[in-house]
């Protein structure tokens, strides 16, 4: 993938406040995810709503939120999951691969590997047919996604030949994700994290 596309991807993704970091190996990605998870609360900006004046019913769901620090990494390849588990374990972070429905109150980190990247818009493409993956990329407060640079495409048109086979499998749930969940519905002021993650971190993996 050309340097030009990497730069374009970075520029476009950063424009929608994604955090971009180049990495040399998956090990770096695991360390990164665990690190973000541990340091998350140090950053006061990351308030997911429970601290506000919400109704008693809504706050019940906040109480339900796990006391542990949780990383969810559904659909990771077995060897990758094992490596991530080691890193998480060492740091005392809980790693889960499924059962996301019992974590709807929120988890700390969703970890995934993207199927494709679209440089033109800074988008990630994730085959989210697994319900757990769909949920982990929505209910996590921070989404950490690895994009192998070999999967970066210039435009959606260029990715079409690879998108189609995914969509031709049934059932399939395909997602283009660009930046964090956002809204401008109140006075057109941008606000992040209205339903989904409050942050999106993209790790560009040099795999060529």
């Amino acid at each position: 993938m050309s340097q030009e596309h990497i730069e374009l991807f970075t520029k476009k993704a950063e424009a929608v406040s994604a955090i971009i970091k180049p990495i040399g190996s998956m090990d770096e990605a695991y360390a990164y995810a665990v690190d973000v998870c541990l340091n998350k609360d140090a950053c006061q900006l990351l308030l997911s709503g429970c601290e506000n004046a919400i109704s008693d019913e809504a706050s019940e769901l906040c109480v339900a939120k796990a006391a542990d620090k949780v990383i969810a990494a559904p659909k990771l390849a077995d060897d990758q999951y094992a490596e991530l588990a080691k890193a998480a374990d060492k740091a005392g972070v809980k790693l889960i691969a499924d059962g996301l429905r019992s974590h709807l109150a929120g988890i700390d980190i969703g970890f995934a590997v993207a199927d494709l990247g679209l440089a033109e818009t800074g988008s990630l493409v994730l085959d989210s047919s697994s319900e757990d993956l769909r949920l982990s990329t929505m209910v996590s407060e921070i989404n950490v996604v690895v994009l192998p640079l070999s999967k970066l495409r210039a435009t959606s048109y260029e990715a079409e030949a690879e998108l189609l086979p995914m969509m031709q499998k049934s059932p399939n749930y395909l997602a283009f994700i660009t930046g964090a969940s956002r809204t401008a519905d109140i006075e057109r002021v941008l606000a992040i994290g209205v339903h989904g993650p409050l942050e999106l971190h993209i790790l560009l993996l040099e795999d060529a």
Partner: protein
Amino acid sequence: MQTAVKIEEYLQEVEESLGNEFQRKALDTFAVAYRTGRANAFAGMDVKGLVDEIAQAKDEGIRRMDELYAQFKQKAESMGVHVHLAKTAHEANEIIARIAKENDCKKVIKAKSMTAEETHLNQHLEGEGLKIVESDLGEWIIQMRGEGPSHMVMPAIHLSRYQVADLFAGVTKKEQDPDIQKLVKVARRELRKEYVEADMGISGSNFAVVETGTIGLVTNEGNARLATTLPRVHVALVGLEKLTPTLHDALRILRALPRNATGQQITSYVTWITGPNECTGAPDNKKVMHVVFMDNGRKALAQDKDFSQILRCIRCGACANVCPVYRLVGGHKYGHVYIGAIGLIMTYFFHGRDKAKFLVQNCVNCGACKEICAAGIDLPRLIKEIHARIQDEDGHPTQSKMMGMVLKNRTLFHTLLKNMRWAQKPFAERGGEYIRHLPTIFMKEKDQDFRKLPTIAKKAFRDEWKSIKPTVTNPKLRVALFSGCVQDFVYPEQMKAAVKVIASTGSVALDYPMKQSCCGLPVNMMGEKQAAKEVARQNVLALDPADYDYIMTMCASCASHLKHAYPKLLENETDLAPKVAQFADKVIDFSSLIHDVLQLSSMKFTRSGKRVGYHAPCHLCRGLEVREAPREAINMAHDYVPTSEEEVCCGFGGTYSMKFPAISKTLLAKKLANLEAGEITAVATDCPGCVMQIRGGMKAAGKEIEVKHVAELLAERLR
């Protein structure tokens, strides 16, 4: 929502909206920010080419609607999706209620869908005892307020953070801080619990991709992902026009939709759902998935040669973003469910004549919507068509009927115009240039006093033509003059100035065919289509295009009407077809003629050193896409000073300003303020209607800035 029963009520409501300062400011800021945002988002792209491709592909899909539906149905059913076709909005609601019942659903979480707004689905389901919660933040807010959306993409743009905080205080039973970031987080938590409890998710769909049987959803908040993931049942309500043969078609629309909607490159989430996906909340781990396609008149529309193009609409909302009237009155007064230019039209088809009849009159015909439309829909023309249709169905108002009759008879019309001078005499100011009092039979005087209206000239241009016609021995070019009524009878000096400038080349044979009449735009604006057709025919016969190289008119509105509306109006008059096409091709405006064709240079003029601003008439900049020529023409003799929002409508719109004086007045006030801020001594423009409006406004406000046609400002500096 449009609920007024009488035009007076609608006018009253419109005036109230004009007084809504929060909304006015919000829409103003958005209108200005949108322009830059959109330009940045499309930077480096061939927008026109993209719009053309979308229009073509959509037309193709619309033509093949039945076949595409059958293919989608087959494909999706083979994957276990239940596919329905609802003939009407009511039927769609009933199907969805039945699905809820059959699956024992009690609680619905909904992702934003304009189609569901069209069918008033929430009310129907609530009536069936279901609880429905909207999950898009804006939709949730208006749902709790019991309102409809005021914009198709930003449904709650009319509300302030304080209003939202009050609303949330009610829901949470806690006091709320009017801080937007905090309010959004409150919504996040409140809505999260709603997803958890819901057993049915309802979404719309931006695309139904036939080749894969996929539903495509475009959202920013991610609510559609949760709403289609957590509940055990998913129902997508989809208008038949959303069927696209291939993924490529959908990706193409996706390139335009977010960019044109809000200036975003792409939305945060684009979701493609193929078949019933894994759902651990469902008994056999599989989602129950239904796709309800809705006809509700779409199949018939698809067959309509003229109106099928409205089915191209990709619901980007841009036609509201740029509409000067929307910007003043807001979406609740500029649509019923669908908002903006396309809303005026769709209201007629989907919600009926009674809801549409005042709305379609409230279009100043500035063309801004047509220029921005992602699907290349000829919105202003179709709005007028609906206006005419409603009059044909409901009966024509006496005034417009009379106007139509008079215009069809040129001699009668011209005699009346001339006689008006005498009729006006008792009402004219000293000096005779402006009308002091308006004869009250025409309109309420106090509504019109925001600008001084001119009197009829002593001598019409047609009566002076013989004595001023320049003699040219070896002409290189033959040009026919088309004056239009205003320059003929009110501002003949503008015509004379143009003749003077053109004659200075010594190489143009000018002609003024006497049988020309009003271009017909005013009656077209009043919904008198038949009269408009007849006048068009008369003019094409009066100015035989074979006799001239160009047909020059200095009235931008006439020019764009002659060039673009005539071929449409006269399309069934086969005997005239070649003449009409030639005629339209030869129409040119003054600035383009002298600047691009005759290539006059600044050598011809003595510079004045005067700072001159420019107002770009809607029908010139958008109608004829003439932008550089007039500005460069002014610069040949004066110092052209750019001012803000030059291309925004001055509020004239011919009879529009008589019918909607409050809006016209507000648009004019903005125009004047923008011009004044440029510290100019004169304003140039190239439409007598704009001169009438802006000059009259300056005069009424006691401002010293003179307002003239470009031709006059050039003629006065000819060497």
